């Protein structure tokens, strides 16, 4: 059960750092088990490279259960590979066939510079959140949680938007490298909840401004982000963000 019989050809993006040019390098792998995850297949590759005295491929990963959002491989032209609604770490080799050639690249976007091999810098996302992706409440100021009833439908909708793991697949797949799905998910989560109302219009303005400052592109409603999102974040969030943004500019007295 531990050894498998899949033979694969990998074409992996290798790039020493952000100042050097990268290229696809071919690797042959044999004996891959269909029960391995995609990252475990990379573990096998790296073990072989280390044993041969070569440098292993650097890639981001951590929880390996699809929730931390760290893994980020662009596999055969799709972020997180061919299966819908999974991250790279939850993609298993049974989704591929013996003899396949698999091309693996990093996320590509101006706002996500390559750090090394398949690892990119996604700190732009943190800066967008720091610009307004929160409710300004200090520790110790909260009322009893049940003093604020929230209709279940609304709470569920906020939860669905909050399911975003910040992996950046939406940006990687977008021809404009737009971050609108990510940004709108956070804006929607908070806009759908009563706690988020006081800062609603301020938030949308400052987060969108930061998103633009980071160099993310605009949305042209292609919908690739929604199709590739491992957590199924809906395009409706972008519509909601745009409505709020317009309202903020035309209706709200507060400009940021």
């Amino acid at each position, binding site marked *: *059960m*531990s050894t498998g019989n899949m033979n694969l050809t990998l074409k992996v993006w290798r790039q020493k750092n952000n100042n050097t040019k990268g290229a696809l390098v071919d690797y042959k792998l044999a004996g891959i088990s269909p*029960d*391995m*995850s995609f990252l*475990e297949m990379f*573990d096998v590759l790296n*073990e072989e490279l*280390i044993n041969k005295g070569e*440098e*292993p491929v*650097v890639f981001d990963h*951590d*929880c*390996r*259960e699809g*929730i*931390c*959002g*760290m893994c980020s491989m662009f596999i055969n032209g799709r972020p997180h590979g061919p299966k819908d*609604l*999974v991250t790279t770490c*939850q993609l*298993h080799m*049974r989704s591929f066939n013996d003899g396949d050639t698999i091309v693996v690249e990093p996320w590509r976007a101006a706002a996500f510079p390559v750090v*090394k091999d398949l690892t990119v810098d*996604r*700190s732009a996302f*943190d800066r967008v*959140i*720091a610009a*307004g*992706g*929160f*409710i*300004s*409440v200090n*520790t*110790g*100021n*909260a*009322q009893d*949680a*049940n003093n*604020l*009833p*929230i*209709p*279940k439908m609304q*709470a569920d909708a*906020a*939860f669905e938007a*909050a399911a975003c*793991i*910040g992996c950046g697949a939406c940006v990687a797949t977008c021809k404009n490298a737009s971050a609108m799905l990510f940004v709108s998910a956070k804006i929607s*989560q*908070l806009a759908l*909840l009563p*706690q*988020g109302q006081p800062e609603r219009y301020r938030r949308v303005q400052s987060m969108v401004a930061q998103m633009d400052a980071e160099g993310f592109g605009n949305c042209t409603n292609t919908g690739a982000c929604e199709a590739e999102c491992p957590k199924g974040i809906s395009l409706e969030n972008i519509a909601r963000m745009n409505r709020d943004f317009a309202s903020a500019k035309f209706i709200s007295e507060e400009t940021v």
Partner: protein
Amino acid sequence: MSDINSNIPEGELTSKWTKYKSSVPLVNPSNKRTIEVIIVGSGLAGASAAATLAEMGYKVKCFCFQDSPRRAHSIAAQGGINAAKNYQNDGDSTYRLFYDTIKGGDYRAREANVHRLAEVSANIIDQCVAQGVPLAREYGGLLDNRSFGGTQVQRTFYAAGQTGQQLLLGAYSALERQIGMGKVEMYTRHEMLEVVKIDGKARGIIARNLITGEIERHFGHAVVLGTGGYGNVFYLSTNAMGSNVTAAWKAHKQGAYFANPCYTQIHPTCIPVSGDHQSKLTLMSESLRNDGRIWVPKKKDDNRKASEIPEEERDYYLERRYPAFGNLVPRDVASRAAKERCDAGYGVGASKLAVYLDFKANTERYGRIEASKSGIHNPDKETCMRLGTEVIKAKYGNLFDMYAQITGENPYETPMRIYPAVHYTMGGLWVDYNLMTSVPGLYCTGEANFSDHGANRLGASALMQGLADGYFVLPYTIGAYLSKEISVKAIPTDHPAFAEAEERAVGILNKLINIKGTKSVDHFHKRLGHIMWEKCGMARNEKGLNEAIEEIRALRAEFWSNVRVPGAVGELNPELEKAGRVADFIELGELMCIDALNRNESCGGHFREEYQTEEGEALRDDENYAYVAAWEFKEGVNFELHKEELKFENIKVAQRSYK
């Protein structure tokens, strides 16, 4: 018998914390602006502390090894968070949460700490809801609860199977808000490699910038470690790949005692190992035990499919052995019971190291309720299953999807196969009531400390403890120390103590890279994990532990002479990061075995085969072992035992019974 002081305030258990809070020295706002606090780790315990201390006015630096603070492994916690709110009107109270936690921990935790935890539990829920954390709600708009193991009330709050994610993103957003305001300086992709001590006090850290490989010196009036647990010492665990003991271990080597290292939690419901390639194990939330029934065939080596085994030939062994708690016994009890059945030859699946977790009965029950809601009387079985599946999907959909993705099986149709796996570590750095380690000015919060769970943690209590420490305990207790530090000016990092600490860190990095041996870091990590799992895992005995200690010492020697770390120090080099962590795990592994050998009793997650009742339950020895074992690191790799006696003044110590 104690030779260390836990600094528990005097007075009645129920009023200790309130009184302490109102009498703890304060730091005035203008002084706070000049006091710097370093927080290592950005999970629930680290992010909540960093945000709260910054809100209070301190200058905060926060470090994490991931590319963003949002990725800390708290994010993967699934099931829920406990709080004594009594929203369900089922008789819950602060005392009951306190009692359940002490009992669940098999009477090996400090009463005062646990009571404080139970007291602040309710504030956590209020705080998180105020931050916009979307916890599950009922149609009336109020918060929903569910049951977890080791309790008979419903006090667990949740957000589907993503409670940890939502709570962490709440703490992360509070942290990012402070970062945006310039109150917290965030250092991502940085790993702490040393604690800097000046005149016996913690005064900073040495960190490595993981992108450039540069070594950095950072000063702090105090240092807080919220760096998580050490379950990855077993190689295979439910921890993230990067979860490590390095920060805590370096602190230990600088004088912080390590307490109860042998208390590890083996979680009963994980997806079984499928092969040698396995890099990590995946948990199926304990919340599933609300609706899943655990069974094995009554016949040994029964190779029939689950669906072909009739009801009367199934052994619901938890319901049989523990009728009062049934499938909701605490984790240690459930794990050992699964191991017992599999060792006896009743395991299922290809490896025979698995038991079934079956949702069929409850799916049908939910279906019946749904049918009657929609006016369908006497629904047929198919209708019940169809409607019930929708209910199960709403409750646990993401977990079922994950199971299907990993195993290639459909859990809506066949029962899940589960087996225990390493999940959490109750042991950790010893801390006093203030959460300060035995090094003045060095604090430890969350899973990284040992404080609240005794020998076994109850489900949904890790999130509670992490956030309690970070939001509601440390921000108060750290004032007791910092109020005496207001006249200390920031110490320049060219101080000899910084140079010395940096030299130690650099020395280790250079040594690792220059061994140029023949075996990869993972090779050693896997071997260590194998020793730990076989001899210091779910069941331990004197012979095995003695063997393990010898084997680990030999492994350590081999590691330091034959590990191969490719690349250079001055660049992004994940193999070098792993090498440093595995080196620390090897030393910790030895201490875990020494601790397990020292504790001649069974309690909670520590099960010594020599000490069990006739029915196979853990047999404590309260006369000789009602103490916290706090180990001091000594030159070479040696350890000296200190004891903190545990006094139970408010709870009657008894043999734990879930029958």
